[in-house]
């Protein structure tokens, strides 16, 4: 009886996973197809599409921009997020309002920024995208790091003060090392989220495209196996980052 139940549970779990990941596996498979038509059976395997991809100037530019946006918005979110999380942990004011940017649909945030940024004199540009990404990444940072703060023994900070550390020294010598893994996890998650963000970016972008927008543009001109190659690479990078972020968040 127990075995049957276990079988049913694992069967349904695997079915769901299969349903989620099978399309991705197919894309990875097709990315090695020599032909430009994605159909079975695949007769010749090659890395042609990857070579072509690396020679695609606008695609490479989009990759660079995406990396730039992801890294700088993550850094900005980090600089704002850590002290915010610390303050929220200590004084719990605004409550849950900080979660709003994650729960709001990206379209709402995007439209709101689209009409608000020009008022501030910020034109539609990568700067606008950067600010847009930073706002929702701050929310990610704060929730991830705040969760760790909540688990942190409050006596650790007291012990540091007791042994002569000023609040700043206590933060750098005791608190930071103990929330380090949560920060690394949040950084990896933020990078991934920024790398494949579409709705907010879509409203704020001008001529320079990020990678997801570039891919979206390519799709409109018809699917080429180049898209498969890009998707495969993005999948590889994202899953590595997510895997590592999970690993770091599990620690402690």
């Amino acid at each position, binding site marked *: 009886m127990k075995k049957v139940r276990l079988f049913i549970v694992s069967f349904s779990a695997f079915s769901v996973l299969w349903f989620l990941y099978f399309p991705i596996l197919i894309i990875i498979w097709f990315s090695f197809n020599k032909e430009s038509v994605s159909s079975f059976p695949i007769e010749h395997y090659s890395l042609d599409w990857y070579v072509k991809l690396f020679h695609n100037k606008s695609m490479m530019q989009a990759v660079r921009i995406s990396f730039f946006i992801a890294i700088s918005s993550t850094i900005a979110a980090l600089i704002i997020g850590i002290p915010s999380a610390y303050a929220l942990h200590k004084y719990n004011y605004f409550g849950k309002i900080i979660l709003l940017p994650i729960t709001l649909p990206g379209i709402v945030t995007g439209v709101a920024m689209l009409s608000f940024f020009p008022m501030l004199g910020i034109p539609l540009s990568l700067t606008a995208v950067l600010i847009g990404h930073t706002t929702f990444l701050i929310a990610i940072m704060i929730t991830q790091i705040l969760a760790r703060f909540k688990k942190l023994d409050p006596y650790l900070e007291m012990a540091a003060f007791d042994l*002569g550390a000023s609040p700043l020294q206590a933060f750098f010598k005791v608190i930071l090392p103990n929330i380090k893994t949560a920060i690394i996890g949040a950084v990896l998650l933020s990078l991934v989220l920024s790398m494949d963000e579409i709705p907010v970016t879509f409203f704020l972008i001008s001529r320079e495209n990020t990678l997801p927008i570039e891919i979206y543009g390519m799709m409109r001109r018809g699917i080429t196996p180049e898209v498969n190659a890009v998707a495969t690479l993005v999948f590889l990078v994202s899953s590595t980052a997510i895997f590592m972020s999970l690993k770091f968040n599990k620690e402690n």
Partner: protein
Amino acid sequence: MSKLELKAINKSFGSSHIVNNLDLQIMDGEFLTILGPSGCGKTTTLRMIAGFEMPDSGKVLLNNQDITHLPPYKRNVNTVFQNYALFPHLNVEENIAFGLHQLKMSKSDINRRVDEMLELVQMETFKTRKPFEMSGGQQQRVAIARAIAPDPEILLLDEPLGALDLKLRKQMQFELKQLHKDLNKTFVYVTHDQEEALTMSDRIAVMNQGIIEQLSDSQTLYNHPKTKFVAGFIGEANLIPVKTEDKSSFTFEDKTFDFNHEISSATAVLFIRPENVSFDSVTNISLAVTIEDVIFVGNHRKYKLVTASGQKIIKTEDSSVPLTKIIGQSVTIYLLPNLIQIYNS
């Protein structure tokens, strides 16, 4: 000379008055325990000495210097926390060295001091262990070493043995007492465990509802509790309601006994320890009782006695004394006047 002085300290959290106009003088080199039930204000008092809480009014003086408003990192006072609060990212050596780094000591001095401390708490072989790789008792030793390492003026201990099992707790009590003797340092110890307090302390301050009910050495505290609360909190006690019409006698079940006391109200409570209730006619204060039950408790036996009016009295006796009484027997008990106290009810 008093090392630390608390002067008219008041502290409230919201509407609850936790510490009420508290005065306390702690002598240099003494082992003082603040003992009381949870919520009595003992931990808050300790925290105000450490600097984690600021009093609403009053003064904290260390070596006659006002430290009331100094933050904890500017006070030469260290704490051993109940849950150890060892830094999980540092090993034993680095934990102990933490306070020494703050003093900007040289590397060689730090190393020497750390080794000294490890030897003191007999943890030399654990130098490179991380806190999570050690048992509770071992962590507590490291916590003590870490707190002593910067050579504080006073060592504060906040229920440091609370999380340990009984056997280890007893062992650590002796070790702490020994440590206090060896270091010749002022220890302020907070606990709710009266046995711990009686075993280790030079003096005990019994705290209840924000005030110190009695401050004295263990023996005085046990034999001559000043208030009803102290009598009931420390050890086992018989608290018997009596009538007190004048200040030279008390009346219990229509029998009046000569006894000088300070009670001016008509009713009061008589206190006597179970071991001081005697079957031998050693005094004229006697009561007729019936033995309700006799319980064997290892090294002593406990008699549950009841008077004609239904007042229950406990008497204990060494188990080495032969048992001659039986359940249901009527006997007379005698109470030695110098072991009796009478309190306001």
